[in-house]
């Protein structure tokens, strides 16, 4: 079978044609917009700094969603897990100073995110309740919870919706500085995490069970894989990594927690994971693309393009990529 057919090509042309037309409708030439998008995200040192800053949480949360997807689960709850992880990481870093604080804050993020995803995994495995709905509900509860805590017990004096800034000794440092460009150690850590996930999936029994369950749960069960436990494990590990993304975001870049702390990283993470394809390594270019798009669509607003362009692009990219990818999967049969 061919890798793709005329249908996919037609869809691609229609999708990007649609984006071009929406741009022309607001009086911006598509070429000009594309140039500004590239210049705004990768044209200057400052642009690179911002793009890589956005890439870090996208990469970690993208890996999280990737792991769930590998087991055939859609973790739409990455956003909520990231918020809970970020808040718990902040609380720990506010109380413990130094490197110990950094390590404990990361652990707190992992545990909080994992626990937040656990109900979705349990309900999916044992009560057959769809994980998409449970994780969306958990997102809403997480948003209400962190809003309540940040406006109440954890509020910084004089501020309405943010916590105190964590001690500088707990911050994740920059490895390389060429102001305004800074390369934070968090991005390097995220890259190492990609390697870790790749090894986990390729070289361990747990990772193999994960892929087997995702590919065909019935066959996996017949082969002796405890599918229910794998489902719960996949969801929990996925949640833990999302939570870690939140904690790292606090320690590396934000240094405190506030309402609106995540600009929808958890949702973009789903796009990152989908575009990563079959390997965790794919998450690196995919996270970079989403980071660049996120930064680029902010700077493109000076041309008079509404920020909604990022949503349109996200939808179009997912549709086009999914249309080709499914075709490839099918042609293996």
């Amino acid at each position, binding site marked *: 079978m061919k890798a793709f057919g005329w249908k996919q090509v037609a869809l691609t042309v229609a999708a990007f044609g649609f984006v071009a037309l929406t741009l022309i409708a*607001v009086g911006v030439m598509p070429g000009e917009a594309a140039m500004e998008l590239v210049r705004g995200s990768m044209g200057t040192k400052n642009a690179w700094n911002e793009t890589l800053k956005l890439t870090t949480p996208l990469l970690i949360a993208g890996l999280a969603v990737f792991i769930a997807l590998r087991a055939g689960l859609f973790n739409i709850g990455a956003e909520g897990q990231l918020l809970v992880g970020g808040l718990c990481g902040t609380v720990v870093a506010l109380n413990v100073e130094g490197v110990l604080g950094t390590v404990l804050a990361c652990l707190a993020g992992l545990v909080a995110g994992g626990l937040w995803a656990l109900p979705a995994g349990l*309900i999916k495995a044992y009560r057959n309740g*769809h994980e998409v709905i449970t994780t969306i509900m958990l997102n809403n509860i997480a948003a*209400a919870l962190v809003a309540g805590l940040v406006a109440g017990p954890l509020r910084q004096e004089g501020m309405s919706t943010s916590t105190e800034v964590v001690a500088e000794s707990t911050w994740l440092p920059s490895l390389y500085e060429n102001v305004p460009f800074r390369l934070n150690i968090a991005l390097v850590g995220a890259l190492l995490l990609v390697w870790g996930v790749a090894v986990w999936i390729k070289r361990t029994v747990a990772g193999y069970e994960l892929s087997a369950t995702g590919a065909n749960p019935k066959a996996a069960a017949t082969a002796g894989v405890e599918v229910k436990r794998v489902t719960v494990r996949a969801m929990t590990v996925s949640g833990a990594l999302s939570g870690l993304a939140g904690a790292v975001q606090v320690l590396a870049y934000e240094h405190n927690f506030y309402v609106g702390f995540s600009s929808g990283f958890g949702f973009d993470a789903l796009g990152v994971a989908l575009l990563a394809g079959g390997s965790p390594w794919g998450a690196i270019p995919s996270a970079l693309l989403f980071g660049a798009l996120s930064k680029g669509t902010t700077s493109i607003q000076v041309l008079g393009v509404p920020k909604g362009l990022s949503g349109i692009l996200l*939808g*179009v990219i*997912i549709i086009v990529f*999914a249309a080709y990818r499914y075709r490839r999967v099918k042609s293996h049969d």
Partner: protein
Amino acid sequence: MTDAWVWLLVVNTVTLSSPLVLAALGGLCSERSGVINIALEGLMLTAACVTATVGVVTGSALLGLAAGVGAAIVMSLLHALLTQAFSIDHIVSGMAINALAIGGTNFLAKSLADVSQEKAPVFDVKLYWALAIVAVVWIAFYLGRTRGGLHLTAVGNDPDKSRQMGLDPVKVRYLALVGTGVLAGLAGTLILSNAQSFSDGMTGGRGFIALAALILGGWRPWHALGACVLFGLFSALQIQLQGQPILGLDVPSDAWTALPYLVTIIALAGFLGRNRPPSGLGRP
């Protein structure tokens, strides 16, 4: 607990549950035909935005409504096209449509006319309340008592067997998704009618709550109606009890906000009835 308080509770419950009822029925059309539909949220948002834009530009409530529902039908058919013709995973397609709707409505509302500043001409919400009841009665009758309804259920339960019966599942699903577009579109225009002007993300996740109500109601029209009213009641209580101490305790408003979502999770855990989706859900 005065009469006025109870009456307000009833009115708030009806106001808050009616968009859920229309959206849940929209989801029912789609899911009973075998198409998982998390795009309800996007369809509603699209309808609300297009209705506001066309309403503000033309000054006609009818044109606004027609355009809004039409736009929701187009988006719903896009979901049908992607899942049926391109075999894209139903959840992925739904996510993509939601992303398109969130971005596209922001784009439309900011570019053509700044509609968020102006009140759009809308129909009285009581019209929608009546429509919601009619829709429940009609869909319950259609699914259980007519040939078309049985075909829809057959396709949703077992697409392979329905093919052997001589049905074309893909065709049935396209028609079902037109129904989804109409109902979710009406839900979106109702939300606009309640608010009178468009704002970004104004559907506020109610498409997902409607989907949860559909699941809680076991994919049956009357049960789904019950679940929607239950969720509406919770939200109405949240509005009216906010800031009042319960049993001597001050309950923060964020706890009330989270309550309907918590109930949904408990429902999904199967503690409030069984979870039995149409057996052909998500299959080609």
